[in-house]
C-alpha cells in the first residue's frame, strides 16, 4: 500500500506542473523588483562623523549595514550589528565593538534634556572617546529614542542568551529554531568625499567718521558651525549659536549708533562670521590669508583689536582668553578694564584674563583668537568656559534650554557696553539703555534659530546653503557691504575632506533563522500528507455520510 502511495506522489511530480514552474518562476524572479517589501520598522539614523583633517582620517569610515541585530551581551562576531543604548555603552565596550563587531547602532536616551549629571557625563565621555580616538572602521549610527526601537531593544536583549545558558540540548534547539531575530539594514552606498566643498566666511563692517583707512578697527569674530559625534545631531547651542547671536545683537546695537552722523564714533567695526571653526578654525585661517596676503589693502591689516566670541552662554563667568598678557594701555588691557567696570556696575561676575601660550605642536589650536595672534594681530577670545578642553564645545548634548538665553543676555550686555565705552572712551554713563538696550527677543530669536539647526561644518558646505544665506541676510540688515569668501580646499592636498551620508534610514526586518524555514517545510509536508490521506480516503467519509442519511430516512 505504501508503495502505491509513493507512486502516486511520484506521479504528481511527473505531471506538467513542474515544467511550467521551471519556466515561470525564473521569469518572475527576473522581472520582479529587488526588494519588494517595506520593512516593518524604519528609523532615521545619523551617522557618526567622518572627515580628514590635515590628511589624518577621523571618525567612522563605513556606511552600509546589512547584519543581524544583537544586544551588547549577545554579540560575538563581525556578522552582528550591536544595537545598544547610549547609557550602556562605555568606552571600553565601544573599543571592543569597534575592533570585533560588524556595526553599531546607538540609541540615544529618551529625554535628551532631562539627563542627570552622571548620565550627561557618561555620554560626553563616550562621545569624546569616539571622536578623538583613532578612526572607526565599522559603521556607527545614532538613533533617536522611539517606542518601536525600545521594543526591538527589549527583544534582542531577551533572545540570544541561548547556546550556553539554555538548560538542555532540546531547549537550546527549540530556542534556536523559534528565536525571532532582527536584520538591520542601512542601504546606503559607501560614504564618498564631498567634491564641491565651499566653506563660507561672511564679513561686513560699520565705518566710522573720518578717513576710513586711518581709523582704528575692531573686529568681532565668531564661528557659526558646531561639532558633535554625529553631524546631523550637533545643534551646538552654547557653542556656538550663542556666539553668533551675540555677534548679531552687537551688530544691531552698533548699527543704530553708526546710523546717525553725530553718534558715529571714530572706529571701524568689522563683524566676521567664520566657517569650519571646529576644524581648527579653517575659516579664520583662510580669511586671514586672503586679507593679509592679498594685493589690495585690507580692513583687518591694522586692527586695533580682534575679539572672538565662543560659547558665551554656558555659565555666569566670563573669561578673556589671550595668548600673551596685554600690555598696559594697549587696547586689550583697556578693553579688559572696561569689561571689569561694566560687569561691576551690572553686578555680574568679574571678567578674568586667562593666559595660555599658543602650542603649535598640538593638532588643533585652542581658541579662535590664536589664529589672529599667530598673524600678530592683538586678539582675545571671550568665553564662559575657562578651559578650551571643555567637552561642551563638541557634544551632541549641547542643545538649547531656556536658561541659556538669560545668561547670553547678561553677557551681551556686558560685552556690548564695554565695547561701546571703549570706542567712545566714556566711562561713566550707560550707553545701551532705554530704547537702545540689548534686546532679549532678538537674542533669543537668533539663538533659537541657530540652535535648532544641525550646523556641523560638513553640512554647510554647499554654495547656496540656507543657513549661510539666512546669516548673510541677518548681517546685511545691520551692516553695510557684506562679503562672503569661500574656502575651497585644495584639490590635490586638501586641508580637510568631508564625507557624505550623514543621515540614513535604518530598516529593521524581523527574520527567522534558516533552520526555522526547514522546520516549517517539515511541518507543511506533514500537513499536506495528512490532507492527502483525507482526500484519498474521502470516499469512506462519503459512504459514512450516505449510511447516516439512509439510516435517518429509514428511521
Amino acid at each position, binding site marked *: 500500500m505504501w508503495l502505491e502511495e509513493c507512486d*502516486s506522489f511520484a506521479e*504528481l511530480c511527473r505531471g506538467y*506542473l513542474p515544467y511550467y514552474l521551471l519556466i515561470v518562476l525564473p521569469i*518572475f*524572479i527576473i522581472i*520582479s523588483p529587488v*526588494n*519588494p*517589501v517595506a*520593512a*516593518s520598522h524604519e528609523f532615521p539614523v545619523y551617522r557618526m562623523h567622518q572627515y580628514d583633517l590635515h590628511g589624518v582620517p577621523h571618525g567612522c569610515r563605513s556606511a552600509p549595514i546589512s547584519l543581524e541585530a544583537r544586544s551588547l551581551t549577545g554579540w560575538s562576531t563581525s556578522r552582528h550589528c550591536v544595537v545598544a543604548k547610549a547609557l550602556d555603552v562605555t568606552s571600553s565596550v565601544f573599543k571592543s565593538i569597534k575592533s570585533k563587531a560588524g556595526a553599531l547602532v546607538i540609541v540615544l536616551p529618551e529625554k535628551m534634556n532631562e539627563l542627570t549629571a552622571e548620565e550627561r557625563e557618561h555620554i560626553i565621555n563616550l562621545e569624546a572617546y569616539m571622536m578623538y580616538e583613532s578612526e572607526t572602521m565599522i559603521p556607527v549610527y545614532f538613533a533617536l529614542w522611539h517606542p518601536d526601537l525600545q521594543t526591538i531593544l527589549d527583544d534582542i536583549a531577551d533572545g540570544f542568551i541561548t547556546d550556553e545558558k539554555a538548560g538542555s540540548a532540546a531547549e537550546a534547539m527549540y530556542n534556536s529554531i523559534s528565536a*525571532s531575530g532582527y*536584520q538591520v*539594514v542601512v542601504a546606503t552606498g559607501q560614504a564618498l568625499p564631498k567634491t564641491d566643498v565651499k566653506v563660507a566666511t561672511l564679513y561686513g563692517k560699520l565705518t566710522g567718521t573720518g578717513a576710513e583707512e586711518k581709523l582704528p578697527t575692531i573686529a568681532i569674530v565668531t564661528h557659526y558651525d558646531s561639532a558633535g559625534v554625529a553631524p546631523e545631531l550637533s545643534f551646538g547651542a552654547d557653542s556656538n549659536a550663542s556666539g553668533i547671536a551675540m555677534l548679531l545683537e552687537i551688530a544691531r546695537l552698533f548699527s543704530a549708533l553708526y546710523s546717525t552722523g553725530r553718534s558715529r564714533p571714530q572706529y571701524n567695526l568689522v563683524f566676521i562670521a567664520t566657517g569650519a571653526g571646529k576644524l581648527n578654525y579653517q575659516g579664520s585661517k583662510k580669511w586671514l590669508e586672503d586679507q593679509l596676503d592679498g594685493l589690495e589693502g585690507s580692513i583687518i591689516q591694522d586692527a586695533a583689536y580682534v575679539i572672538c566670541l565662543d560659547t558665551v552662554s554656558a555659565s555666569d563667568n566670563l573669561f578673556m582668553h589671550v595668548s600673551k598678557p596685554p600690555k598696559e594701555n594697549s587696547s586689550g588691557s583697556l578693553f579688559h578694564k572696561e569689561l571689569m567696570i561694566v560687569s561691576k556696575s551690572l553686578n555680574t561676575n568679574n571678567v578674568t584674563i586667562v593666559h595660555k601660550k599658543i602650542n603649535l605642536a598640538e593638532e588643533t589650536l585652542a581658541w579662535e583668537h590664536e589664529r589672529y595672534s599667530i598673524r600678530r594681530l592683538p586678539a582675545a577670545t571671550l568665553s564662559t568656559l575657562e578651559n578650551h578642553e571643555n567637552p561642551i564645545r563638541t557634544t551632541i548634548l549641547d542643545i538649547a534650554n531656556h536658561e541659556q538665553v538669560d545668561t547670553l543676555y547678561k553677557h551681551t550686555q556686558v560685552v556690548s557696553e564695554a565695547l561701546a565705552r571703549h570706542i567712545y572712551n566714556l566711562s561713566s554713563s550707560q550707553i545701551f539703555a532705554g530704547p537702545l538696550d540689548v534686546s532679549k527677543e532678538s537674542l533669543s530669536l537668533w539663538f533659537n534659530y541657530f540652535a535648532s539647526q544641525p550646523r556641523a561644518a560638513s553640512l554647510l558646505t554647499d554654495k547656496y546653503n540656507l543657513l549661510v544665506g539666512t546669516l548673510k541676510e541677518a548681517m546685511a540688515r545691520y551692516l553695510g557691504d557684506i562679503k562672503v569668501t569661500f574656502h575651497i580646499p585644495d584639490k590635490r592636498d586638501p586641508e580637510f575632506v568631508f564625507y557624505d551620508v550623514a543621515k540614513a534610514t535604518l530598516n529593521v*526586518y*524581523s*527574520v*527567522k533563522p534558516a533552520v526555522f*524555514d526547514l522546520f*516549517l*517545510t517539515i511541518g*507543511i509536508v506533514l*500537513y*499536506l500528507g495528512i*490532507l*492527502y490521506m483525507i*482526500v*484519498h480516503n*474521502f470516499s469512506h*467519509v*462519503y459512504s459514512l*455520510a*450516505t449510511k*447516516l*442519511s*439512509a439510516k*435517518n*430516512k429509514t428511521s
Partner: protein
Amino acid sequence: MTLYHFGNCLALVYVPYYLTYKYSGLSEYGAFWKCIQAGGIYIFTQLVKMLALATFFPTADNVGEEGFDVFGEFLKSSIDLADLAGILLVLNGIPGKGHAKVLTAGIGWAGAEVLLTRFLLLWVGARGAEFDWKYIQKSLESNINLVQHITTATLVWLWSRHDLRRGLVPVVIGMLVLTVYRPLILDFLTSFLLAGPWSTLIIKAVTTFFMGATTLHIYAGLAHSIGIF
C-alpha cells in the same frame, strides 16, 4: 523571508488544490477545462461585484474611521449574493455529471480565487526579508476557503434541486445566507472578542468544518435517493 519561504507558502496554498483535483476523480473526467471555465465566470462575477461596489458604495475609500458601521458593512456583504448567482451560473452552464459537477464548480471557483488573490500577495510579501506569520496564515486560510467554496457550490446545487426534501429547504437557504454573511459575522466576532489572527483562523476552520459536514450529510442523502454514486 526568502525564496525558500515563498516556496513553502506556495506549497501550502496550491498543493491541497492539486490534491483535491487529482484525487477527487476530476482528473479522470478531464475536467480541467471546465474548471478554467468556472474560473472565468468567477472573474466575471468579481468584476460585476466591483462595479456594483464602486457605484453604490463610493465612500468605501476612506477606511480607518472609528466604529463598526454594521449596516453599511451588511449592505456591502449583500453584494456577495452575486457570488451565489455566479456559482449557479457555473452549475447550470457547465455540463457535468454527479459529484463531478459540484466539484468542478467548487474547485474552479476556489482555484480562480486563490490564483487571483493569493499569488501576488505571496510574491510580494513572503519573498522579502521580513518574516511575518501572516503569509502562513493566509495560506492556511486559502485551504479553508477551498472547503468553503465546495460547500457553497454544493448548497447552491441543492437549492436548485426540486427533489430536495421540503423540510431541508429552509436549512439549505439558511446556510446559504450564512455563507454570504459569514465574513461579516467573523469580522464582527473578531473585533468583539479581540481575537488574534490564529484564533480567527481556528474559528474559521471550525465553522467551515461544521458547515461542510452538514452539507455533506444533506448532499449524501439526496445523492443516495436520486442515485448518484
